[in-house]
């Protein structure tokens, strides 16, 4: 893809999975793209996430929209990013009577969401995963998987750069350049500080995309607009040892500590959910850590005595008004905000969503961007196979 | 109240990013294999230096009996005998560690290399004590 010197220039603020996928999408459509990230790429929520490639089953009952989105993106990602996933499928296990009673609704909802679910008997489940709690009642197999939380997004950055995008990590956006127009104000550039040199400079832009995840509110504030993003942290616990080949989920309505994702020689248990004000000040509450271990060991008893490798928190960027009582009530789906109706032209925010849907989020954002800039090129990211992550360092 | 502050700025020169020879010889943060590597180099160089010295000294033999016997009387001094003990240490360490490096270098007993090192060093220590006693008693 050759860069069009006359093409509009889009600056993306935020170097997480979403920003990387937006850069890739826009570069494929021939725009000039510059992405700035204050730290290392994927140093925000992206790198810290659970590493779960959702089949969508988790959302099938309560959030059909998210479930359909997930399974669609799950299929696309396997095709465009081979090698970035452990493709071992997932198992939803029912432990209590209530879990078992929930199974028919869960199974039917999966099928209705086009998720290829398969009923697994207790005996078969224990043969598949000998470390499961022997008290399980039944299970459902779905196409979950393990994502390398950093290296999958890195492939989007690598591909974007191959297609002409400029990726600038350690470059912090500190101000927006605003120009007064007849309709209000227009963002025409971003002031950044290169943290490796201390140099402050300005990058001119025809349009700025805010892909800040839970930091999106702070970035939008630079342009004087408000976006309803609620940082919703959750605690994750990684224990040494791999106790399952498949992703193990609790078969019940979504709750805390009900997913164990095997990854390399670790098992990662997550997660909890609360609401925070500032994604830069996340706590790791002791009771949440204890809950991860106890809930995880309800599914895989060996987790109770496993060595803890790390405990940490990651902040989801949930869409919703401040004041919602719990993170779980907010939709997991994403939204793209064009801030023109707020009186600010040339500024688009993409937020919400989750790691599995990063490409779809980028497609939605890029569609809005291209409509605004009158770029007719359609999205091509559904079929475009990504460069390996090592290409980023070439 | 929480203690939180920038204590000082720009206190001293920092190490270069490529460690260079410090990567061989800086003992900080070293583990067993690293120490063995350093000592293997030092003893190897030391023994090689001794070899050259020894060959030069042996040239006295070509100058006849009086030149050689004069040197031998100096070599019996306690200082020289201490030097001999250091030499024996160098030979023992380099030789015994060399057995480990050779075996490991051919992919043999790699997972037991640490135990092998310890065992060889115990043998070496005993041999060194025996040699030292011999040097100072027999002369």
């Amino acid at each position: 893809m050759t860069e069009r010197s006359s093409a509009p220039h889009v600056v993306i603020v935020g170097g997480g999975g979403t920003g990387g996928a937006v850069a890739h999408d826009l570069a494929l459509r021939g725009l000039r793209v510059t992405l700035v990230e204050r730290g290392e790429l994927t140093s925000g929520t992206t790198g810290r996430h659970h590493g779960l490639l959702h089949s969508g089953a988790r959302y099938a009952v309560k959030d059909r929209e998210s479930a359909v989105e997930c399974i669609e993106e799950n299929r696309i990602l396997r095709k465009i990013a081979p090698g970035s996933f452990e493709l071992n499928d997932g198992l939803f296990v029912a432990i209590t009577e209530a879990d078992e009673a929930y199974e028919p609704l869960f199974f039917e909802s999966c099928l209705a969401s086009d998720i290829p679910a398969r009923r697994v008997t207790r005996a078969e489940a224990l043969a598949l995963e000998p470390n499961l709690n022997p008290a399980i009642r039944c299970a459902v197999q779905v196409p979950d998987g393990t994502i390398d939380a950093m290296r999958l997004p890195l492939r989007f950055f690598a591909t974007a750069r191959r297609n002409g995008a400029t990726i600038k990590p350690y470059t912090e956006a500190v101000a927006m350049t605003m120009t007064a127009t007849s309709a209000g104000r227009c963002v025409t550039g971003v002031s950044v500080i290169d943290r490796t040199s201390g140099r402050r400079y300005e990058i001119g832009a025809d349009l700025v995309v805010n892909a800040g995840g839970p930091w999106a509110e702070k970035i939008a504030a630079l342009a004087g607009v408000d976006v309803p993003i609620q940082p919703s942290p959750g605690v994750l616990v990684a224990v040494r040892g791999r106790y399952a080949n498949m992703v193990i989920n609790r078969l019940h309505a979504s709750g805390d500590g009900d997913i164990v994702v095997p990854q390399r020689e670790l098992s990662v248990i997550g997660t909890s959910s609360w609401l925070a004000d500032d994604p830069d000040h996340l706590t790791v509450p002791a009771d949440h850590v204890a809950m991860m271990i106890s809930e995880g060991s309800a599914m895989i008893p060996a987790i109770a005595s496993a060595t803890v490798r790390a405990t940490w928190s990651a902040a989801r960027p949930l869409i919703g008004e401040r004041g919602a009582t719990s993170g779980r009530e907010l939709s997991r789906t994403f939204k793209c905000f064009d801030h023109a109706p707020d009186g600010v032209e040339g500024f688009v925010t993409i937020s919400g969503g989750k790691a599995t849907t990063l490409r779809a989020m980028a497609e939605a954002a890029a569609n809005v961007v291209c409509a605004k800039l009158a770029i007719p090129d359609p999205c091509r990211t559904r079929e475009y196979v990504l460069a390996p992550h090592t290409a980023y360092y070439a | 109240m929480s203690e939180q502050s920038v204590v000082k700025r720009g206190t001293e020169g920092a190490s270069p990013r490529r460690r260079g020879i410090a990567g061989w010889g800086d003992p900080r943060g070293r583990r067993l294999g690293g120490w063995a590597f350093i000592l293997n180099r030092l003893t190897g160089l030391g023994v090689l230096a001794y070899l050259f010295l020894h060959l030069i000294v042996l040239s006295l033999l070509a100058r006849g009996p009086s030149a050689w016997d004069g040197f031998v009387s100096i070599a019996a001094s306690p200082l020289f005998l201490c030097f001999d003990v250091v030499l024996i240490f160098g030979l023992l360490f380099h030789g015994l560690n060399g057995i480990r490096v050779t075996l490991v270098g051919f992919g043999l007993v790699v997972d037991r290399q640490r135990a092998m090192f310890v065992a060889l060093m115990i043998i070496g220590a005993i041999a060194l004590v025996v040699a030292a006693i011999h040097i100072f008693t027999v002369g």
Partner: protein
Amino acid sequence: MNASADPAYDTHATADTGHPIRLRVFRCRAGDRSGHFDEFRIEVAPDTTVLDALVAIRTRLDPTLVLRHSCFHASCGTCGMRVNDREVMACVTKVLELGTPTVKVEPIANQALLGDLATDMVDFYARFNAIGRPLMRESEWLPDASRPAGVESYNRFESCIECGLCLSACPVVASDPRYLGPAALAAAERAIDEPRGLDPGAVLALIDDPQGAWRCHAAFECSEACPSAVDPAGAIMALRRRAASGRLRSLLGGRHA
């Protein structure tokens, strides 16, 4: 009050814990010939890691601090550092467990620096790419488990997290950047062990090079530093056994393996 008895106690707190600690942090800007150390003081909790402390310093004391981090559980490999002269992943190194009132933090050595604690991994991947090793491996876990319907074969990510700690700890890389180094050689051994489409002969020829497996002097510092149990030194020795037995076999009239 015993803060840790509070169920909501922040196990990774960086303030108000009553455990003050000093961090001597290496600082260097792009283009500088040499760096210096800055000292910061913060408070830490029992589970507070070196990475937590550095992020707190950047957030609250000095926004100019440049560091790499991503996953916080030692699976991405970005936050490798030299802490008190040892190569560690900052995200799984608890400050109080180091046992020193002052903690020295430097970037990993023997690699180009972007600034402060952040290294440029281009050289690291240049070594890796020479091998062309696979990213995925056949799963060797839970062999008594049966395979789920529809799953062709168990697979998992390679153990190596590409952190560069082994290159930082290696005495040979320290003085000669041309050495292929532990990580790439470990990848080579993996590639020969489980080729998955690669040509093992070509990989073996590549590492049987003056800058390949034979540069190693068996200090085993790489295996000591590895946070992910890859054992690069063991892999190098396995490669050497393959190369040497091939040579000896050809000397004895057999075909070179």
